């Protein structure tokens, strides 16, 4: 096998291993993976829509609006959180196989990505029940998924090796993820940012990515500037990620 084919083969093996492991040990398997975003969607719906009465923030139906960003967020959040533990959990395998080490990040992105794809039916069910209508922008889900995979991989490449040296970093990452949740257009829309912050918000690549996902139901949420920035930022992060990973690799292998 060529190195590329070998990498791809190992990628599938590891991702399916992770999924099998998850589903072989729990009776509710699939339910668990959608329960988290579903519960959160329920909570945010109650708090922001029922209690606060969200006014003209976000779009109607609000539950569909929430899920279009919450489901991809669950993917992002899960993959980055797991990346902080990747080298720790896989240490034995890393010490005995010489597959390019980026696979410990990319397989996480893939397995969490498959779970994300598997959770899409939930969104469809809610869309049908609330009467939300899909438009042709739904084709943007494909670039959105690719872009999110790229971004998550890039950030994973930065986080995973650094955690090996800086134990505390995994706590910092948890905090950053929590901040990022509210700093990204999930409970609100890209267009709801105050004018002064609007420009700066676009530097958060999740802005553009969620804007692409949401366009399928809410075309007014599509903001090309944010999308363009998301591409630029993701590619920049990939560059930084590859550099950090390459420089830290030898030291990580000694440390684990």
């Amino acid at each position, binding site marked *: *096998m060529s190195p590329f084919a*070998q990498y791809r*083969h*190992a990628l599938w*093996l*590891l991702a399916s*291993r992770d999924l*099998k*492991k998850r589903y*072989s*040990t729990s009776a509710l398997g699939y339910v668990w993976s959608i329960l988290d975003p579903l519960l959160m969607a329920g909570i945010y719906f109650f708090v922001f829509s029922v209690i606060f009465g969200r006014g003209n923030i976000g779009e109607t139906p609000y539950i569909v609006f929430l899920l279009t960003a919450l489901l991809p967020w669950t993917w992002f959040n899960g993959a980055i959180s797991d990346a902080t533990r990747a080298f720790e959990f896989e240490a*034995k*395998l*890393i*010490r*005995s*196989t*010489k*597959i390019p080490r980026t696979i410990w990040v990319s397989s996480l992105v893939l397995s969490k990505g498959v779970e994300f794809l598997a959770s899409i039916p939930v969104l469809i069910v809610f869309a049908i029940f609330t009467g939300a209508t899909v438009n042709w922008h739904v084709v943007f889900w494909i670039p959105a998924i690719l872009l999110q995979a790229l971004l998550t991989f890039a950030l994973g490449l930065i986080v995973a090796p650094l955690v*090996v*040296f*800086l*134990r*505390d*970093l995994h706590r*910092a990452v948890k905090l950053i993820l929590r901040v990022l949740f509210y700093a990204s257009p999930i409970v609100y829309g890209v267009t709801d940012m105050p004018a002064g912050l609007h420009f700066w918000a676009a530097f958060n690549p999740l802005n553009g990515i969620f804007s692409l996902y949401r366009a399928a139901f809410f075309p007014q949420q599509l903001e090309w500037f944010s999308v363009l920035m998301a591409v630029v930022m993701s590619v920049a992060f990939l560059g930084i990620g590859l550099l950090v990973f390459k420089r830290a*690799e*030898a030291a990580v*292998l*000694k*440390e684990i």
Partner: protein
Amino acid sequence: MEPVIEVTDVGIRFKRNRQSRRNFKDLFAGKNRRTLSGEFWALRNVSFSVMPGEAIGVVGRNGQGKSTLLKLVAEVMLPDEGSVGVHQGVAPLIEITGGFVPELTVRDNVYLTAGLHGMKRKEVDARFDEIVGFAEIDKFLDTPYKHLSSGMKVRIAFSVVTQLEEPIILVDEVLAVGDKGFREKCYARIEELLAGGRTLFFVSHNEKDLQRFCTRGLYLDKGELKLDAGITEVLARYNADYAPKV
């Protein structure tokens, strides 16, 4: 013939206190705290090359860099100086049970581990019976790996890695495990592979094993390659240096 392994001026250093991992706050703690206590060279200026079909035994006391050298050749560790060139595929018998997932069945684990070491699904299909036959665990194929006895765990792991079609085999003292009968079977398997023209790189403390498999020896002492010669000569020198005091 071209060498299959080329190790050139290799050096690798470790922190003396390996547990002292840095904390996030240390990054901001000023320059003095950032330069941590001494590092040492586990290996330095090590050069040798291995021709196809050679059987090499690595000799030395504990902590003289034997396993580190093996890991460098397996390319699961990267040198700080020099270069390691491995020009053919490697079947590493290092931490062989490491890739096995406790929750998955033996069958799943065989496909997973063989696959991670580069075997295609079809190749595993073709060898599957031989793999489980060698390990003598055909009755436990659908048992979760964690329910196997520790002997069985090692047996199936050894069986998978030695079925890889790779021309270079690395062995790191794994043969010390398992019962006597199975150990003999492992030895026979390694001899069979050697007879088939594989290259062997072997780390062991057991003189009998070294004599049995290896033709050439590398004697490591204090991170240096002290002697690279026939295995008998290397063992004689090692014994002269560290003769048990009566």
